[in-house]
């Protein structure tokens, strides 16, 4: 049994049946991290003590023949934007390089309560702002498939950790595509649930109306298991929805025959790489062969999603990041003599270039004289984009698109051109703005052996259908 190639069910079963131990599983993953992560860079902090304590707890349960919880003994990685009590949490930023949270993020607590073993905190773009993981203040992440390529971002460390068998599953966060795009670049499954489905309590805020937590996994089924574990109302997040959580796993095998899937021409226009187009079209044909009915739908406001997104997300970020003032926590610049100098120099030295750029853009969009022209305008366009989806979902059960217009690009290729980097999110930001769920599932490779992702978008609170379609495709592919 290869202990680093297991899924949630096979890992849990192996521990339950005493074929291995949770401790051995954790140790073999740490050994692999030690060996492989030097050149990949997926982890920022390892939480070995906490992991081994939890593994021991699970092993004692197994020894006593107690049934293990759904993730009993399963090694997981957590994106470093989620607070972990007693374990350094940096958000990929120098400004939080010494921050040790006094509490746990709800999603992490729920995973651990279900038996997961938290191996450590995964690398990401600073404050989840980026599409390549090159904005990490510590070090970039290299794509495990091809080290000269980016893993995508901002959950690049989580995607790379799963792709390189340095975790069975990982949690990521998605504000404009940050789970789905790196999943597509690294050849793993990435699921962004409906807004409000998973509590954001303990997630370091980037843009509160757009932030989502979700899993990166090796299989669609593992994504379903993790979502079932972390979803549901949490009194600590007033925006977490009071909507029943279905048993996603039980619904996976329901046939997809007769389901209506939509294809929108707006997602297949200029800028889409030919190899990606071909792979996604083949995936659509495959689903057709499985009995899905394919219908054309129109999402006419799609070309306006990126500009609307970069106004709304940066406006919210400029407000959320005002808290980093060097007083209660976070970096403080040395040798300052006045309070205002302390604020400015701490923020100047603590934030990286992209974070400052977004704070500036957001502050500008919210400033007197520009609020109506930029921020309010973007919010109105958000309404139009959401209406597009409402209209389409009256006709179809799910929508199929490429996850990203290209496969993984090279490190350095876009890092000096912010606008070019923003366009990497062109097919993913729409779902964040509309609050609908989306999943990226691997659908082939380019000639250079780089993974390609198929994105499946669904109705609000209908993750069950997109998981089902993704599972059917994955099993058939």
């Amino acid at each position, binding site marked *: 049994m290869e202990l680093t190639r297991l899924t949630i069910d096979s890992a849990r079963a192996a521990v339950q049946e005493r074929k291995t131990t949770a401790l051995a599983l954790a140790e073999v993953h740490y050994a692999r991290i030690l060996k492989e992560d030097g050149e990949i860079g997926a982890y920022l902090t390892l939480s070995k003590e906490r992991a081994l304590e939890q593994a021991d707890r699970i092993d004692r349960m197994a020894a006593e023949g107690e049934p293990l919880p759904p993730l009993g003994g399963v090694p997981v990685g957590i994106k470093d934007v989620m607070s972990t009590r007693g374990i350094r949490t940096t958000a990929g930023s120098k400004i939080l390089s010494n921050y*040790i949270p*006094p509490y746990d993020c709800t999603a992490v607590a729920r995973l651990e309560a279900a038996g997961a073993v938290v191996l450590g905190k995964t690398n990401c773009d600073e404050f989840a702002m980026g599409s390549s993981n090159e904005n990490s203040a510590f070090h970039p992440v290299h794509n495990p498939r091809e080290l000269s390529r980016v893993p995508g971002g901002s959950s690049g460390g989580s995607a790379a950790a799963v792709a390189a068998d340095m975790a069975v599953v990982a949690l990521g966060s998605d504000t404009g595509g940050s789970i789905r795009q790196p999943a597509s670049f690294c050849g793993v499954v990435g699921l962004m649930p*409906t*807004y*409000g489905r998973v509590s954001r309590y303990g997630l370091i805020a980037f843009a*509160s*109306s757009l932030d989502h937590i979700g899993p990166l996994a090796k299989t669609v089924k593992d994504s379903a298991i993790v979502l079932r574990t972390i979803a549901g*109302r949490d009194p600590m997040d*007033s*925006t977490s*929805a*009071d909507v029943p959580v279905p048993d996603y796993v039980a619904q996976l095998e329901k046939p997809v025959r007769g389901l209506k899937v939509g294809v929108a021409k707006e997602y297949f226009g200029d800028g889409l790489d030919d190899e990606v187009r071909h792979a996604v079209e083949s995936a659509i044909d495959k689903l057709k062969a499985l009995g899905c009915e394919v219908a054309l739908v129109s999402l006419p*406001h799609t070309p*306006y999603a*990126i*500009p*609307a997104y*970069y106004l709304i997300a940066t406006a919210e970020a400029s407000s959320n990041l*005002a808290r980093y*003032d*060097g*007083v*209660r*926590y*976070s970096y*403080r610049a040395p040798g300052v*003599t*006045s*309070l*205002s*100098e*302390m*604020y*400015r*120099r701490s*923020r*100047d030295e603590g*934030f990286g*270039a992209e974070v*400052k*750029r977004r704070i*500036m*853009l957001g*502050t*500008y969009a919210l*400033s007197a004289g520009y609020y109506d022209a*930029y921020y309010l*305008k*973007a*919010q*109105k*366009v*958000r309404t*139009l984009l*959401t209406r597009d989806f409402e209209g389409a979902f009256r006709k179809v059960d799910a929508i199929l698109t490429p996850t990203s217009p290209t496969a993984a690009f090279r490190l350095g290729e876009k890092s000096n051109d*912010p*606008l070019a980097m923003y366009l990497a999110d062109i097919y993913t930001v729409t779902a964040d703005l509309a*609050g609908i769920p989306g999943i990226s599932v691997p659908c082939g490779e380019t000639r250079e052996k780089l993974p390609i992702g198929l994105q499946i978008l669904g109705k*609000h*609170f209908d993750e069950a259908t997109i998981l089902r379609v993704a599972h059917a495709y994955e099993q058939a592919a």
Partner: protein
Amino acid sequence: MTHRNSENMKVTEKDVAYVADLANLELSGEERAGMVRDLNSILDYIERLNELDTSNVEPMAQISDRYGVDESKQGSERFAYANRDDIPEGLRKSLPQEVALENAPDADGTFFRVPKVIER
């Protein structure tokens, strides 16, 4: 040509200085020049939003009040479930003082310490 270019520039160096001030950032001279260039390029792209007539469209700040809510209820009634009845008047236990101070760059055991605010 110079005149034309400055007309087309939405964000000037003066704007950048003003916005940096609002955002509590200092920014080096080099950073300010880069910011003028980047913000103008991004705002040029954002300009395409003006192709859309949104005069009769309601703005959308968030989606929480649109989906998964009880349609029969209005306004804040829809979010009554978010009120915590287990905690009187919405108060919950604060962090103990020593825990709250643990991450502070400078604290004296009771208070956060900062450079002096009032010049005299």
